[in-house]
């Protein structure tokens, strides 16, 4: 296990997000402040529509906040344009989604190679093969996503997320589309790899049991942070 828990890796400062609709301005997130130390795991809890995914998106630089700022590995994301943020993600960030979000035109191997190639990592094919083998898909390298079961697709997505050895992994309801038994095995795998690579894990979930595995829990309600067990 790598020890890199000595400093803050992700920090939200007074973070807010509003969107303008025909009916007026809608506040999705308001005054979110928290930080996560490198190598720790944080669960963001909340009901549907509480703003979990929006917060995850802002933390990962997939969207820009209306107020406040996100500091990722000491860099304020507001200072970067979309391509700059993409570069940071390519080098340091992994993602696991509820819907797996694999690209259907690419094989399992090609899906896992994708972030490695984007980050211009050496030997992408070999690394991807090893990772797929590690998550139990060594025999399914050339299968397309629609030829894999839900659990296998999520394993593939996890292999893809860990392929670049990210400093931080964002997971959005990673077991939301799986039955409980498969979900359990996926979580075991996720935390196993997380622990092996010393990754900072930020996971959005509405599952209290799952949140208990994490080091910390944040509770969101209607876009506000209502609980922080820091």
């Amino acid at each position, binding site marked *: 296990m790598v020890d890199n828990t000595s400093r803050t890796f992700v920090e939200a400062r007074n973070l807010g997000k509003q969107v303008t609709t025909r009916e007026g301005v809608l506040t999705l997130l308001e005054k979110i402040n928290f930080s996560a130390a490198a190598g720790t795991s944080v669960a963001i809890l909340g009901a549907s529509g509480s703003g979990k995914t929006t917060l995850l998106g802002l933390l990962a630089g*997939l*969207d820009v906040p209306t107020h406040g700022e996100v500091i990722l590995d000491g860099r304020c994301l507001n200072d970067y344009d979309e*391509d700059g943020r993409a*570069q940071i993600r390519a080098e340091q960030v992994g993602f696991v*989604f509820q819907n797996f*979000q694999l*690209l*259907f035109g*690419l094989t399992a191997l090609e899906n896992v190679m994708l972030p490695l190639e*984007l980050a211009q990592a050496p030997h992408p094919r070999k690394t991807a093969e090893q990772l797929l083998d590690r998550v139990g898909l060594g025999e399914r390298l050339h299968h397309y996503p629609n030829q894999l079961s839900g659990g296998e697709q999520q394993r593939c997505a996890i292999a893809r997320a860990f392929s670049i050895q990210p400093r931080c992994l964002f997971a959005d309801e990673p077991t939301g589309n799986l039955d409980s038994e498969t979900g359990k095995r996926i979580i075991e795998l996720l935390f196993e790899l997380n622990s092996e690579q010393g990754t900072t894990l930020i996971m959005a979930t509405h599952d209290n049991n799952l949140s208990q595995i994490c080091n910390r829990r944040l509770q969101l309600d209607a876009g506000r942070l209502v609980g922080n067990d820091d």
Partner: protein
Amino acid sequence: MSWRMLWRDWRGGELTILAVGLIIAVTSITAVGFFTDRIERGLKQQSAELIGADLVITSSRQDVSDYIEEAREQNFEVATTTQFRSVVVFEEQLQLAEVKAVTEGYPLRGVLRISNTAFGPDTAITDIPAAGDVWVEARLLQMLGLAVGDAIRLGSSSFNIRKILRYEPDRAGDMFSVAPRVLMNRADLDATGLISAGALVSYRVLIAGPRDRINSYRDAIDDRLKQGEQILTFEDGRPELNTALERAQQFLGLAALISVLLAGVAVASVAYRFTSRHLDTGAMLRCLGASQRTIIQLFTLEMLWLSLLASSVGCLLGFVTQFGITELLDQLVLAHLPPPSFKSLLLGYATGIVMLIGFAIPPLLSLRRVPPLRVLRKDVAITPVSGWFVYGAVIVCMFLLLYWQIGNLGLVSTVLAGILVTLLILALAAYLLIAALNRLRAQVGVAWRFGLANISRRPASSVIQIVAFGVGIMVMLLLSTVRSDLLDDWQQSLPDNSPNHFVINVQSDQVAGITEYFDARGVSNTRLYPMVRARLVEINGQPVRASDYESERAKHMVTREFNLSWAEDMQIDNKLVAGSWWSSQDFGTPLLSLEARLAKTLGLQMSDVLGFDVNGTVIEFTISSLRKVDWDTFNINFFTVVPPGVLEDKPANWVTSVYLDAEQRQQLGQLVRKFPNITLIDVDTIMKRVRTIMDRVTLAVEFIFLFTILAGLAVLYAAIQANQDQRRFENAVLRTLGAKKTTLLLGLFAEFTTLGALSGLLAGLSATTLAWVLAETIFKFDYAFDISVALTGIVSGILIVVVAGMLGTRSVLTHPPIQSLREGAA
């Protein structure tokens, strides 16, 4: 409610491509419709003007005074024309011209228009050129560097160019004239010495009068017409113009229909997407108590309104576009076209409706089958509309449109089958190309792999796009590059010293002088061939009638005049296919060596006896051999050759073909001055003229095929639209994984470059294959494969598809990734 639905869906942007598809189809059909309708009405309205009279008797007899006197006795207006080709001489320059000598009163219907300068204002005139004057077409002035007032020589006489002839009613369009016109007074003709016995001259008697009397006069003289004489009336118009119109209608109509078919593919793909996106609406309406019928009525009406609106726009654009075609084909068929009529609007709206029924409605029918349960469960299966029904509807609609355009059931079936087979072959080839390319994925970088994956993962859509563009580019390649390649290759396939000049209308007493002339200038072995004009009147003792033959070629061949030639030896480029060539013992015996293809057309065999009317006497010839003739060589050849000693006492005309270099060509003026009655035909000039006309026709056809490219673009956009949600989602995932904008752009570039390259490659290969087939079967020479055709295809394919594709997908790049990820995969 259907109007409201239309307005809502239109604002959502879903129906734009469907409307564009319909507009392209209707525009191309109506543009052709408006244009051909104008020619058709022009031919009808100007039918009397087009023959310059109410009735015309054409004859090859010099003396037609019997008809003239009879018509005058009946108080008809009468005029005559004498037409032939001859050489105009100005200083040392020669130019072949179409000479027309006319009598007072010409033309009896319509008017001549003349001007003082080439492009100055023209005025109508009821006179004809005064004795000693000629009126000439402006291009003769350009060709010889002449001006009004200059003197030219025709035969033995000299004439002053007095006016520029701008319009003569009975000449029709440029397509039918090889050389510029010289109009002269009939009174000057004899002095020129150009009309000798056996010369190729067309005599016409023009008659005008009250139409009922003209009709009874026609009936009265119909039976008295001599062999080779023909009557044209205002009712018949000009048969060759009608044929040209029919061909234009069929060819341009077919070109427009290819665009219709491709636009139909775009319409169908939008209709499929529209259907899948409206399944929930359908289910909700069912839930609220709407019957299956109500749902179908609603959606069909929505489509019908859209089709009517799109057809109106298409008709308007077609109306504007036909001016473009008219401009390109200006004066090629008719000198004046009537303004467009609104008859073609009907065709436009019908096309819109037929396309709707054939391409858009069948997919929509599955909305009828949406179970109301879908409002609760999205995964409820829907029985799709039978494929047989969908494809059947397309074929039936194409058949209807083709039949409307071509109007010949047999031809329509052949053309439709041809189109379907071609599309299937192209689709199979495209599929194989995609499969082959997919293997390259492991060897390329991330962006290219993603681009290639996008093509291979949606093979049906990719095949359709490749074929749609492939067809458009193939047609363009065939019309431009391959056409000129074929012509160049054919010209190059001729030996270097192939004859480039014909000398005709040579009299028997001039043969020695002409041979001497050429010998003295280093043109060796000039051989002149005699020909005696004759008509085929009997076959094996039975009179010959055109009505006995079915094929147009046979009808034409039996009624035309034959040129009987005599020779001791067979031409070296001829090949005997039956019988044997005569020996000296056969000289004086009426034997006949016939060209094999003509024998086949007329159903003639060895030993058949053919009776030819030669100058009033019928001579019977027995077929003793059949020959294969290579007509491409520009050597003098004849359909009918007889042994020496049979026709020598008949009035003969002599003819030869020679190869002249630039210097020898310069000296031709001396030849014409020495033998003023002969006619020189410069092959190069004629070829240039043919090329100019072909270029204009091609440009117009290309103009129509532009719609095919537009329809290909509609197919591409329909496919892009169908996959837009998926593309957004995938780009969002790539963004999330750290892809920069340039990587995403490169991925799209790779996809469209590959699509364009495959379309272009397919187009290049098909165009080259077609050219090869044309060269082998029709032009009969070895086609030199030209790699630049495929390269041009690939480059144009890439350019068009990349530009259009990148423009069509630009919104994908600007869509926020977080939003796409929330929406999930489409």
